[in-house]
């Protein structure tokens, strides 16, 4: 049990205890955002800079996020080209005084699918500039391997397209990535809708999940935040406890010996 309590994972050498990373967009109000973030028990909050025009213009909102006291993971949401993403990452580093960057490069405007080619290119540039890059990628094994070879210590494959709430669409791919890249910190990012989706990702051995819409878009964001907190804990314990092997034949957990014979047939 001690292992479970001391359990943590790391992001570029930093020990993190909460396995839920939370977003800061789309809440009904900043006040509900702050409450939801607190209820989630998260230690890391993502924030987007793309549309504020200037650092000063976004100050009031960012201050609300800084006030949460959480570690900030800025993202490049809304960028479509390598140049845009690199420039925005540099701006994020200044505004939030962190070299962490969630690198997001949109390839398809409609389902916001990441562009794997531009992502790899931008990742290499940013790593060379000293950034600690957390790329948001698809669940393609070869892409993940290339990102790892480039020097990423953390990868964030999607569960499903952003905001769809569909859960882990391709569990086979996600499991393969986990098995083939055992040393990396892996976080399922995007597409989750239900607490059970987060639980599944953790059961599968993923280190954490990152989500936003599933909480912000819920009828009661704060309650949903509590639900996800419990779900990642359940999933992680489930993974650590090593699940029993699945079997095709039923094995009764109560011995039938000693049971009256007229009951035995009913099992």
């Amino acid at each position, binding site marked *: 049990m001690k292992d479970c309590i001391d359990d943590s994972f790391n992001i570029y050498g930093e020990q993190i205890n909460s396995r839920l990373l939370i977003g800061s967009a789309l809440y*009904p*109000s*900043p*006040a*509900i955002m*702050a409450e939801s973030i607190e209820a989630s028990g998260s230690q890391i909050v993502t924030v987007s800079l793309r*549309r*504020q*025009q*200037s650092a*000063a*213009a*976004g*100050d*009031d*909102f960012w201050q*609300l996020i800084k006030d949460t006291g959480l570690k900030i993971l800025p993202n490049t949401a809304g960028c479509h080209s390598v140049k845009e993403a690199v420039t925005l990452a540099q701006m994020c580093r200044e505004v939030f005084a962190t070299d962490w960057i969630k690198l997001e490069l949109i390839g398809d405007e409609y389902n916001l699918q990441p562009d794997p080619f531009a992502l790899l290119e931008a990742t290499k540039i940013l790593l060379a500039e000293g950034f600690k890059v957390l790329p948001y990628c698809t669940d393609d094994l070869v892409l993940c391997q290339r990102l790892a070879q480039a020097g990423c210590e953390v990868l964030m494959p999607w569960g499903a397209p952003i*905001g769809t709430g569909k859960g882990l669409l391709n569990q086979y791919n996600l499991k393969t990535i986990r098995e083939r890249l055992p040393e990396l910190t892996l976080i399922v990012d995007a597409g989750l809708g239900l607490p059970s989706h987060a639980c599944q990702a953790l059961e599968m051995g993923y280190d954490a999940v990152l989500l936003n819409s599933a909480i912000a*878009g819920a*009828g009661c964001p704060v309650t949903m935040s509590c639900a996800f907190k419990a779900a990642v804990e359940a999933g992680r314990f489930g993974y650590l406890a090593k699940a029993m092997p699945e079997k095709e034949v039923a094995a009764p957990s109560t011995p039938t010996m000693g049971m009256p014979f007229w009951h035995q047939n009913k099992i």
Partner: protein
Amino acid sequence: MSYKIAVIGFGLTGRLAALELSMLHQVTVFEAGDEQALDSAGRVAAAMLAPLAESVLCEQDLALMGLDSIARWPAILAQLDDEVFFQQQGTLVVAHQQDKGDLQSFAQRLKPLLGHQAHSLTSTHINELEPELSGRFNQGLYLPCEGQIDNQAFYQASYKTLQARGVSFEFGKTIDINSESIQGAFDYIIDCRGLGAKSVSCKLRGVRGEVARLYAPEVKLTRPIRLMHPRYPIYIAPKPKHEYVIGATEIESQDNGPATVRSTLELLSAAYTVHSGFAEARLLNIQTGLRPAFSDNRPQVSKQGKVISINGLYRHGYLLAPSLVADAVAKIE
């Protein structure tokens, strides 16, 4: 009893407060800008009165306050010397086939408002309500209690009526509410400055919104239309003389600079997908406004000594202002 009252800020709430108070009291309006109050969010807004649709995002008490406010608008407009367009023929909510999930989730999140509820529409119903949308949408919602007003006409008409009533105006003046010259000269001070009050209320923030105004004689829509879309939810509010207001972006930014290309593309292309007649529309302007908001996005009416403040109306100016101004005026003893 008649008081000497200063109204600070000549945006939407300032105008409503001055209209209400000038019937009984001696009112002076102070405004940092000119009579158009170019920085006020209420001038840029689409002036939708949508308590049911907004209930998806705001608490139920605010949506109910919106219902109360709608009922107050006709009497407010009736006291003006010029006629101002007011309409309460409901809102139509539509989504393209691939975005029907967004329409369903919107429908699920509507809150019950005193028996007012949304009706599901088939393509036949849509055709009856808005014939020009027929064939384009085969599902939608009708929110019958909703409406809109022509805010530009309201801004002009309210100024004219207040002038006729003998209200004094001091334009181009930024004043210190707590200064002796103000506190000594007035019995009450109504602070309607919106973001202009940021220096004293540090919890206020601006939420940027961009709104396009089009002249579209080819388009014949008769009531506000909301388009549900995963990323570009817009509304189209038809105003008199073939004008349409397309809104609005919502960005957590204090930047009040001109609209960006991205926002313009989003607003206009989404409008074009609703009605192809917008392709040949004239783009009259694209304006930017900052909505004053507190961190819970709820408005506040408060009284401290002689000063009564109304602020934080966020995206619900026209929806809530009449009730909030009534609350504020009731604080005058």
